[in-house]
Structure formats: C-alpha cells, structure tokens
C-alpha cells in the first residue's frame, strides 16, 4: 500500500515538475545603427544644372526603428552643386559631386552627375593635321528643351599661330604645335578638342585610349589601353605616352595606364604623346557598393559544418547560395540563421535535408550588410552547429 501511494506521489510530482518554462535570450538582433541615402540608382544619380532635388536619408537606431534626426549634408564640389542641411541639392554647373550625409559616426554617400540640357557638342573627323592641311569641325547647339537648333557659332583656336579657324569651323594648320578648338554661342561654350599639327607622316598624329568601364570603386584599379598612330593611321610602336588624371584627389594613373580610385568623384583620364592628346574618359569613382559577400563554414560546439556560402544580389533581392562543398552534420531542427553574433539571430529557412548546392531567398527587408554571420542553428535547443563569417 505504501508502495502504491509512493507511486502516485512520484507520478504526480513528475507531471507537476516538468512544466514548460520560458527562457529569455539575446538573439543577436539588436540592430546596428544604419544611415543610408534613399536612392534607386546604383550609387550614381543625375541632376540638371539649375534644378534642385530633395535628397532623403534614413537613420535606423539599434532597435531597427527609423528615427528622424538632424543629419549633416555636404557636397564635395561646391562649384558643381550645393546642398543645404535639409538635403536640398542644387545643380550649379556641369560636373560630378559626391554628396555625403553624416550622423554621429555614421556616413553614407552618393555620386551626382550634374549636367546641362542647353549645350554645344563639338566634333571633328580627326584631331591631327599636317602643316598646310585643314580640318572641318562640326558643332551642334541644343537649347534648354534639348532641341537641336541651327545657329551661328563663334570659333576659337587657342594658339592661332599653330592653326587658325574660320567662321565656318574650318581649321587651317600653320605650323607644328598644339591648339585647342572651342565653339560658343552667347557665352555658352562647347567641349574642347585639342588638335595636333604635325610636320611629317612619321610623327604621332592620334592617340586613342579605351577602358572596359568608366566606373570603379574607391581603392579599385582600372587598366587603360592606348593606341598611337601616325597621320596615315599606321600604329606607332614604342611612342612615349604620358598619362594624366584631371583630379588626382579622385584618381591617379601611373605611367602604364593603371588608374586607382582614391575618393568619390570624377576625373578625366587622358594620354598624350608629342603634340597629340587622346580622347578623354571621365572616370567615375564611387564608394564601394557591396553586391556579394562570402564566407566559409566551420563547425561549432563539436559539430561538423563545412563549405562555402555566398550572399549575392540578384536583381533587387538577396540570396544565400550554398556551394557544392557545403555539408552539415544532421541534427534536430536545424535552421539557417543570419546574425551579428555566433549565437541566435534571425531565422531564414529550415536547412534542407539534401544540404549542398542550394539557394535560399532572403526577405526583402534584409540588406546585404545587415548581418555578418550565417549560422546553422539547432532551433529547439538553441545550439550552433556551425558559423560562416561573411567578408
């Protein structure tokens, strides 16, 4: 009888004692403060000279809440555009400026190309000529409505002793040297074309530079190519080419034509040899826009997780791509988490059973730099099986 009473008591005790409690855990989701300029462009935006636009930036506190604060705005090229402390940007002249917004230690920036609708586009079929020969220049005037309008231009040659230009835009080469041709209407000037006047057919007559792109990030390098030709279009090998960057604070270029981005902005890259000057390429240097991050898994707590993972931008969304070499030890309730620590985080998806070479779409409210770790997380017991730190 005593034994049965004891049995009843222990069963009752067992049922009462084994109730589900509640734990409180820091899940690593205490957000980082964020400050970002709202833009639909890929780090570069445009504005017309004379126009203005209100630039918006959003600040998120550590709780992930958007908070309105007094932000500090600045423009790197005040002659190109100004911006007030409300974020109102005004285009002043053609060029590129870097707009920077700061709050406490946070910063974001965006390149703006300021351009003018009313313009003169100057062109020539070549930019080198033998002494005694001539070149026909062509100028087109577009009014403030971007409509091509026929008008009379004022033509100037910067060095009339080298070459003169008449009212029809015909340049006559007088002696060996270099001159710059410009067309203007009512104070509005065209782009410049530098003309090389050469004495003989063995001299450098033209230089053409090319590059795969005209946009790089800060600290990124870009190789320019150059082709030097004589007046007959025959390539000249071994010519002494000098490279130049119009804004050395934005980009430098070495004697081999390798440019390096230093700060956000625009710099005109040109090359010269003899009296000939190349076409110019406007190199846009912008803050690096992260489009991909990657990491390598390592096991945690004695569990085995190996392989590579990438977080990639696909269209307007983000995906996590687990490589062929990804492998995870099986376990109860394994989930993929994103986190800023190696414990806890935000749940993304259940780890597929066939866990290699698969892709997981990330929620639209996650940005590529929000989280620094991908976790393989045993959800029911709160144990990490493995982590990959994203670079």
């Amino acid at each position: 009888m005593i034994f049965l009473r004891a049995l009843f008591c222990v069963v009752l005790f067992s049922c009462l004692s084994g109730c589900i409690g509640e734990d409180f855990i820091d899940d690593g989701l205490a957000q980082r403060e964020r400050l970002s300029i709202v833009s639909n462009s890929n780090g570069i935006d445009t504005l017309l000279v004379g126009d203005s636009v209100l630039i918006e930036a959003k600040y998120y506190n550590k709780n992930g809440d958007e908070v309105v604060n007094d932000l500090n705005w600045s423009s790197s090229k005040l002659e190109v555009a100004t911006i007030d402390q409300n974020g109102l940007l005004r285009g002043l002249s053609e060029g590129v400026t870097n707009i920077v917004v700061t709050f406490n230690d946070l910063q974001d920036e965006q390149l703006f190309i300021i351009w003018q609708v009313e313009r003169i586009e100057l062109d020539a079929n070549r930019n080198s000529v033998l002494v005694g020969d001539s070149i026909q220049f062509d100028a087109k005037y577009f009014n403030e409505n971007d409509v091509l309008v026929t008008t009379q231009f004022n033509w100037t040659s910067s060095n009339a002793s080298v070459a003169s230009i008449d009212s029809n835009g015909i340049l006559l080469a007088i002696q060996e040297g270099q001159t710059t041709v410009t067309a203007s209407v009512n104070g509005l000037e065209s782009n410049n074309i530098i003309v090389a006047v050469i004495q003989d057919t063995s001299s450098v007559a033209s230089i053409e530079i090319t590059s795969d792109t005209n946009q790089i990030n800060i600290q990124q390098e870009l190789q320019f190519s150059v082709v030097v030709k004589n007046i007959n279009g025959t390539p000249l090998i071994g010519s002494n080419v000098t490279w130049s960057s119009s804004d050395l604070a934005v980009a430098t270029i070495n004697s081999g034509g390798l440019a390096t981005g230093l700060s956000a902005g625009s710099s005109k890259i040109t090359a010269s040899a003899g009296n000939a000057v190349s076409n110019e390429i406007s190199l846009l240097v912008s803050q690096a826009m992260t489009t991909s991050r990657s990491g390598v898994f390592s096991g945690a707590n004695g569990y085995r997780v190996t392989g590579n993972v990438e977080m990639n931008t696909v269209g307007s969304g983000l995906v996590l791509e687990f490589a062929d070499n990804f492998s995870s030890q099986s376990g109860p309730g394994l989930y993929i988490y994103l986190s800023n620590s190696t414990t806890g985080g935000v749940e993304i998806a259940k780890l597929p059973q066939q866990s290699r070479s698969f892709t997981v779409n990330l929620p639209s409210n996650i940005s590529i730099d929000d989280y620094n770790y991908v976790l393989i997380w045993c959800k029911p017991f709160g144990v990490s099986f493995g982590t990959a730190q994203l670079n």
Partner: protein
Amino acid sequence: MIQQLSFLFCLFISLQASAGGWLQNEKEGYFKLGQTIIHGNQFYNGEGKQTDIITTGVYLTSLYGEYGLSKKFNLIGYIPFLSRSVVNAVRFESGAFQEGDELTSFGDSDIGIKYGVRQNKSLVISASLVLGLPLGNAEGGESGLLQTGDGEFNQLVTLSFGYGFNFPLYLNADLGFNNRTKGFSEEIRAAFELGYVWNKKVIIAAKFSTVQSLMNGEPTGSSGNGIFSNNLEYVSFGPEISYRINEKLGLTASYFSAASGRFVLAEPAYGLGIFMELK
C-alpha cells in the same frame, strides 16, 4: 537527447539499486520506484566545453527490479514507465517568441540477466547481459524533436565486482561494454561505489560513473538527431543515502554531478526513490 539522458539515468538508477557484484537470493528481490530529474541550460558540447542551450528538463519515473530466479541467476529490469522531457519556450530580446515543447511517454527500457560467477565470498563477481529495448518515442512532441528513446537496440555486457570489508564498508566496481546498433558508437561504461553501512539502517555511498564512447559510429547515429544522440560521454560522481524504514521498505536520495562530458547536459541529476525488498 532525451534518450541519451535516459541511458544516463538508467546507469544512475542501476547504480542506486544494483547490488553490484552481489546477487539476490533465490525468490528474493529488490524493487525500487524512483524519480530522477535533470533540468538546466548548460550543455557539454562536442569539445567538452560548457555552453548555454535552451533550458531543457528530463523527468523520469521508473521501476527498477532484481529478482532471484535461482542461486546463480537474477532477472533484472528497468522500466521508465513515465518519461517526460520538456524544452522551454524562448522570448528573444528582439521580441520574437519560440514555443516550447514537451513529450511524455513510455521510455526505452532494459531487461537482462545477471549470473553469479563467484558468490558467498568476501570478493564476489557477477556478469550481466542487459538488453536495451527501444520502447520509447524517438520523434515526439509538437516539433517531433523530443525523444524518450532512439529506436536503437543495444546490448550491455557488464562484469561486476563486490568486496565486503570486515567493518561495515563495501566496494562495488562495474566494467561494461555497450554494443549499439543503427550507427551509434559502442561505449565503455565503468562505475565505482564505496559504501558505509551504519547501524544496518543507513547506507551512505559515494558513487562514480563514466561512459566513454569508442567513436566508431556515424557522427550522429542513423537517427539523425545529432545534438545529443551519439558519441555521448560523461564523468559523474556524487553521494547517495539509503534509509531502511523497516524490514521491507526504504528510501533513497541521490545527487550526481556532471563533472565533464560531451554531448550531454552539464547539469546535476537529482534522484528520490522508495525501495522494497522481497524476502
């Protein structure tokens, strides 16, 4: 996990109840109703380091018995007829909430036979074969992740030694080999017990036990529930007090620490029991 812990309890309870190298006399027996609890949020990971996990509890209500079939053979059995495991709900700092889970069922049980190799001497020796019967639930709870068994059939062979000193001290030592199936690693199990009998009423015992894995199975065992389920190891020790109320009934209380381990809760196990001797 729970299944593995139930093995842990099995050993604890065996240690609490077992006569070690000694056998029950023919038609005599020892039966114990026990309650064992492990509850906490500390876990020995695979590297043997303690780490936080979500608070987990295991509550085992069991019957343990030894019965003398003959002078040489004892029938032994362990039945966790009420095995309950819970994992806490979690409220995260971010505001998210994760439901807890619970499972109550019959647990994996043991049945075996003990043979007296040498009895009625100061040094007694016995050998036993215990079969682990997969009667528990390997995929329980709302999540299907809680266990009171692993579906694995194991066979534990143990050689036990007992030595009675002239004064009221005794020593037990067990050395066992646990052959496991379904990809689980085999185990070496060892236990030592030094007991003092006071006034024939009270037994105070210091107990030590360990399980060491041979690491020859699959990383998680074929069950796939790898967080606790394979290559489990631990070293545990603690006191147990037994009080004999009368000729037939008695009470026991025990506390066993988890001094070290791998893939096991780093929490102490508390035990209470009432035993009955059939004479």
